[in-house]
């Protein structure tokens, strides 16, 4: 099935801009100046939509994880429903983002990379819809008039491995365990043998949304926050804890890692609320007790995590309070009280596994995790091009 979209016409681009502007969600989109020859774009067709990240390689280059996120946008298309409409929307979004990178940001074709996420491939495999991925790739090639463009799905190990390579600087590469908490699952891993070929994969079937959903199912008639909190603790203490403890033990990450880095939306949300002073930083060192305190604040005094309350508490005059307020507002827009409780509950459950009495691990929250793989993919692709 090939779908042809005449997106090169001004009308179609106008349509795309109107379409995407209402759905764009930028997790870390503070820097918007796009220029220079070291700019790359990565476009990922994910389960929920199409994401594009524009990065600029800085300093000592990709090998040290030195890159800036210039733009980070996404379009919700629900590709994994594999309906005619979602197919069309995904193709429209994918092509539109590609055109934006190429035409608007003037990034040449050979510095734009397109992949399908491991999540899409997993669902397509399960539902015998692998052909939809092929069709999408072909339709996209046709739409942008690049018949030889490489558009391929990446598997879960590759995705986790590339994320690690892209996010964690080389100085911490072999001592850091990276965990990406998604909405429906959690995945990550580390390099156990001092080389980037061997990768120890870590996976959980629990994500922020699945904790929330499991909690909702237990509420019965009592929909109060008190009951939500109680039932969430039961979900976390029951099947989730069992799986987390087992997965962490099997990974041997406790013995092999000094740093535990968390990425995903909840890591971004928590770090923004705990350390608003570091709102601009893509990575924030975290203390376990600070996350516990945030969890209590969200449950007992939700208003205290509002943008006005947090900004009011900032005494340093050198801080950009307007920018910080905007970031906090964004967090509260993406996560409501119960979603924050669920996500941070899961986060704490995993962190607790590494909070030893004798040996303390250094925790980090990574805000740009969703684009981390792109820098590594770019690095890999550049090496292949040479």
């Amino acid at each position: 099935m090939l779908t042809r979209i005449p997106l090169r016409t001004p009308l179609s681009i106008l349509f795309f801009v109107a379409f995407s502007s209402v759905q764009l969600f930028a997790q870390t989109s503070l820097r918007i100046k796009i220029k220079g020859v070291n700019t790359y774009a990565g476009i990922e067709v994910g389960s929920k939509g199409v994401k594009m990240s524009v990065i600029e390689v800085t300093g000592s280059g990709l090998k040290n994880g030195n890159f800036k996120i210039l733009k980070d946008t996404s379009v919700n298309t629900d590709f994994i429903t594999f309906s005619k409409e979602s197919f069309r929307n995904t193709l429209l979004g994918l092509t539109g983002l590609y055109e934006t990178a190429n035409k608007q940001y003037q990034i040449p074709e050979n510095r734009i990379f397109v992949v399908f996420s491991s999540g899409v491939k997993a669902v397509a495999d399960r539902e015998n819809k692998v052909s939809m991925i092929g069709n999408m790739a072909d339709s996209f090639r046709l739409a942008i008039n690049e018949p030889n463009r490489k558009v391929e799905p990446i598997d879960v190990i590759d995705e986790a491995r590339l994320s690690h390579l892209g996010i964690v600087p080389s100085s911490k590469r072999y001592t850091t365990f990276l965990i990406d908490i998604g909405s429906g699952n959690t995945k990550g891993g580390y390099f156990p043998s001092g080389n980037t070929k061997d990768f120890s994969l870590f996976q959980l079937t629990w994500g922020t949304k699945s904790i929330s959903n499991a909690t909702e199912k237990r509420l019965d008639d009592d929909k109060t926050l008190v009951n939500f909190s109680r039932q969430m603790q039961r979900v976390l203490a029951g099947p989730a804890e069992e799986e987390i403890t087992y997965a962490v033990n099997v990974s041997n990450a406790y013995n092999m890692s000094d740093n535990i880095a968390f990425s995903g939306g909840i890591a971004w949300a928590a770090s923004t609320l705990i350390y608003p002073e570091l709102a601009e930083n893509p990575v924030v060192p975290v203390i376990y007790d600070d996350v516990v305190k945030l969890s209590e604040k969200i449950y007992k005094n939700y208003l205290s995590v509002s943008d006005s309350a947090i900004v009011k508490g900032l005494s340093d005059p050198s801080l950009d309070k307007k920018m910080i307020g905007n970031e906090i507002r964004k967090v509260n827009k993406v996560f409501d009280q119960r979603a924050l409780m669920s996500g941070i509950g899961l986060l704490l459950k995993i962190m607790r596994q590494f909070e030893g009495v004798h040996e303390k691990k250094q925790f980090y929250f990574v805000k740009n995790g969703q684009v981390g793989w792109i820098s590594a993919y770019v690095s890999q692709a550049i090496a292949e091009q040479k």
Partner: protein
Amino acid sequence: MRDSKSILLLIVSMLLIVVSLFLLWTWGYNKGKQNTKPGTAVISDSTTAKLLSVDSLNDLYNDALNNLNSLDLVISRADSVKLDITFKLEEMNRLRDDITALLANPQNPDGLRIAQQKIQELQRRVDELKKQNIAIQRENKRLAELLRQLAAISYPSDPVVVNPDAYSDSSNTATIPLPQIDPNSKPEGMMTFSSPSLTAFSEETGSTETSISTEAMRMAGSFEIQNNLSKDASGEIMVVILQPDGKVLKSASSWDTGTFETEEGRKIYSYKVKFNCYRGESRVLNFEVPADLLTAGNYTMNLYQNGKKIASASKSLQ
């Protein structure tokens, strides 16, 4: 056969009657004996004896109260046992009130007897508390001594004394404001921090110093630590580099930059230096903060340990 059974029953009945009679006699005898006891009350009926008894009880009572008052010090100083002592004191106060009420009516012999018992009880408790007081005072003394010893050797929870001499031989061209220095304390038995310096380098790696902002690619600093403690030490020093606009210089790799609590509230650090230092050892610690863009002006580096500022240095870039 039937006759023999009747005879047996008759004998048992007779025996029961005899036993009953014996028990009745025993009861009657004891009763009579008890009735003769009031005779001993003749003495208690004597007014003089009664007053003497009350006076002696009052003396005992006052003694007990005096002992009790001397224990106030224990209550105010004992922290962990305060609750227990307060509880005991409340019990004794109740006892004291009971005794006061009983002594107020010397005409009641039973009351005086009970008062005597209560005074003895009060005295016993006061003695017990006195013993506890002595034990607590002894323990306090021992703990104070222990604290004094720990204060001399403990690390890193104690305030660090910076060697004042360090500020005169700084190679840095910038003025270095003096940090908090306790003039009465001696460096011996403490960790000392000295020779803080801040430099800018023009290369990402390499050692070409620069004072021109447009050339500078990283700020680097160093300071010396001297472990004068009686044991090996380890810890963290937070480096805060303030840019000319007052903002904290963050490392280009944001993995190195975080927040920490200080006496002045939460601050952002540019870099965290972890160290180990053996007993008696002196070592120079270096750090680097890669930066994307450095502007002209004065850069100030503040070093913090356990939330307290321990040293400063500065560097001007043109």
